[in-house]
């Protein structure tokens, strides 16, 4: 009897101990196969070609006519990315329960200017909330500037994405002055089907990966958040220089009513190669004339229909020989996908002479 009891007890123990638990005891742990995709060795401290680039798919676009803005919701494989706080970055790996990477973008319908804002996304299934979270402002080579995160969905099927946006925090000028002041909300329905995800193209960049450069943004229906070309910027370009691999184009406008009828210094930082906007930075500028400082102040992040997202301040009349120094007090507080995570951190001041 005793032996039989022992066997029975043993049997029930074996039965209750799942294989997973067993493997866990031995030190094996489950994780996503995409947890941490390969990184090229010797990444430069600059924008570089990633090892792999993935296409993304469109779940839908929706215009909010009352506000004159358009939302888009896109998807891709769950992605690894880096969040940025100050000058620290934190790698966010793909969890084993992440189902997909959801991305949102928001732009002024008429000017196609991408808006920097706080977006949160709630996923609903039959009216019931599945998950809700604030999206990270992000920079990726195939999408440009967007908002996104990895999401875990219980199953394949029909879902609704409810996108909520607060007022745009940046100062607005020109025709944008009285706009983007309200909170908005829109809903985009989508069907989560892994087949759609697996149909997305995936490109290995081979020997190119790790080299300085960037692939072109691939979305055609929507803006990638590009800044205007240097030649299209208004005012007098007093300099364009690179810092931390970002290009800073500095323009000086003698007088323009939308900037308060005073001389305006506009700094438009952008990524190299694709001119993607770099919001969420802290910049300040000084103007030195003949050894004495005539201007020293922070530059305000500003959204302008012509400049797009830029940083500006009203300086006095600039004179020939003035030295303008732009200091980066904080690099762009944006999450980065592969290819951008090493750039825009160590950003020395830029000095130009008028």
């Amino acid at each position, binding site marked *: 009897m005793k032996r039989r009891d022992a066997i029975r007890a043993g049997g029930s123990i074996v039965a209750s101990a799942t294989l997973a638990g067993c493997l866990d005891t031995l030190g094996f742990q489950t994780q996503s196969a995409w947890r941490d*995709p390969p990184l090229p060795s010797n990444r430069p401290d600059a924008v570089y070609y990633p090892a792999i680039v993935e296409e993304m798919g469109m779940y839908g676009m929706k215009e909010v006519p009352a506000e004159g803005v358009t939302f888009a919701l896109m998807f891709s494989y769950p992605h690894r990315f880096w969040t940025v706080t100050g000058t620290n970055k934190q790698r966010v790996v793909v969890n084993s329960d992440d189902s997909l990477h959801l991305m949102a973008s928001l732009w002024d319908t008429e000017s196609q200017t991408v808006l920097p804002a706080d977006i949160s996304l709630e996923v609903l299934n039959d009216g019931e909330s599945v998950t809700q979270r604030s999206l990270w402002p992000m920079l990726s080579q195939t999408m440009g500037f967007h908002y996104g995160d990895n999401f875990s969905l219980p199953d394949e099927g029909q879902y609704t994405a409810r996108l909520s946006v607060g007022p745009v925090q940046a100062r607005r000028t020109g025709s944008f002055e009285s706009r983007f002041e309200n909170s908005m909300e829109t809903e985009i329905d989508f069907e989560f089907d892994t087949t759609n995800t697996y149909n997305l193209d995936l490109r290995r960049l081979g020997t190119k990966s790790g080299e300085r450069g960037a692939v072109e943004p691939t979305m055609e229906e929507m803006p990638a958040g590009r800044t205007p070309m240097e030649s299209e910027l208004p005012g007098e370009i007093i300099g364009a220089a690179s810092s931390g691999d970002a290009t800073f184009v500095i323009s000086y406008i003698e007088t323009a009513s939308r900037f308060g009828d005073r001389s305006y210094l506009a700094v438009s930082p952008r990524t190299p190669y694709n001119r993607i906007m770099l919001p969420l930075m802290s910049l300040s500028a000084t103007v030195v004339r003949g050894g004495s400082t005539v201007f020293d102040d922070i530059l305000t992040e500003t959204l302008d229909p012509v400049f797009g997202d830029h940083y500006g301040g009203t300086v006095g009349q600039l004179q020939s020989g003035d030295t303008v120094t732009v200091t980066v007090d904080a690099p762009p507080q944006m999450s980065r996908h592969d290819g951008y995570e090493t750039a825009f951190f160590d950003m020395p001041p830029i000095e130009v002479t008028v």
Partner: protein
Amino acid sequence: MPSSHNTDPPVDESEIKSSADHSTTKLEQMRFRRPLRLGIQFVIWTVVIAFFVDTVSAANGLTLSGGSRDELAIPQWLYLGTGGATVGASALLASFVTDRIFIRKIHEWNRPLLPVDRWEGVVTKVGRAVGVVILILTIYVGYMGPQLPNASFAILVTFAGGRAALPMVAYLIGNVWSILNPWRTIALVLPTGFQTYPSKIKRWPAVFGLLTLVWIEVIFPVSTVPTVLATAIVGYSVVTLAGAVVFGVDPWFENADPLAVLFGLYGAVAPIQRHNGTIQVKLPGSELTNAEILSDTSDIAFVIALIWELTFSGFITTSAGAGTVSTLVGIVPVELIPTTVQATVVYTVLFVVGFLVFFAAYWYAANLSRQWVGTYVSTETLRRSFAPSLLAIAAGYHFAHYAGLFISLSPALVMALQSPFTPPANPIVLTLPGWFGGLSIASILVGHLLAIGAAHAVSYKIFASRLVAIRSQYPFVLVMIGYTVISLWIISLPSAIPPFLQ
């Protein structure tokens, strides 16, 4: 310490036909030589172990995940423990086992498990059906299914299954490929045997085939891009089926098909063997003393190719290997030729030259062995008799190289087998704990031990004199130690992605 000298039957000694004499001086020398041999082994292992403490284990280039690679640090105590146990075990092996009856008993021990005829029909039918279905699915899903390696049924079945798990089953349990082999099953229903297989080419086609398969695996992205893999499998199927149709099913799969030969030979290491219609349990590696396993130089070349392909594909996925390739590509002064072409040439030359070096090392070991003992036994016979023991080394290294890959990908493989057409949203893999690196090292050492043991037994089969038998092994043991040390070195290196390849 051994008292076996006294128990050795005098009959064996009197049957000696070799030229070695048995003067007391020689026996005296022998007493010193054995400690010397142990001493040398001890020193070698100590150096090896001291050199690799605090290193990391290798991984494979297949998985998209690169981040977990450097987490396989091996605890020092385990490395030292394993190494120490090995030194101790080989010492035991060398000192205790000079009793030829004992040796023979060990290698001939077997227990009949069950007769084949009762269930063979059913198992064969099911196994063949499974094999063919998986082949068709692999090709179809390879072209039509997801193109991500960890979510692809085709890639997972081919590499976690065929490349990693099936050889492990073959050498740890027994060869099941002879049943699963889908090409053989398909060829069985085709009209075959239009030509007689040219017997003078022996198994050279299989040697060439194996080297070609590994070369393709290295050069082309078969382990990462499912469509490329599917194309390679279609190509392999065409060649294999054409060969089987022209030359007949058995001649083709016994001589020319690299996979059938590979699984057959790995199966020789296994504890489960088939003899005269009965499934027997034997001690692992004991079948390796069977001189009938290999019958020709081409067979020896195949065994060496097995060791070399694992060494090579291991080497190029390490930092040292990647560095070597980059350096070699860098010194080629031709600017006009694209880098990828240069890299392909470098990989190919390394692959071929390395194989020739490995083969030559073994080839000359036999010459040396014959010179040292001055025997009537031909070099050819020595070569063939000792070569099967190398299979244990190949098996040990295969385990070291692929067990981790298999376990890591097993959850993804199970998911792929459950639903080949609809992959999961996020395939799951297992991370390997730190001690797993120690297991890899242990498997290499166990393979080495089995090989030494088999060589020991083989030498006692060939030579009546213990003295001659032991001396005849020296060159082979040296070559084996060479192969093993290289393997241990490779798995201790940090991993890298082979440069210039897609």
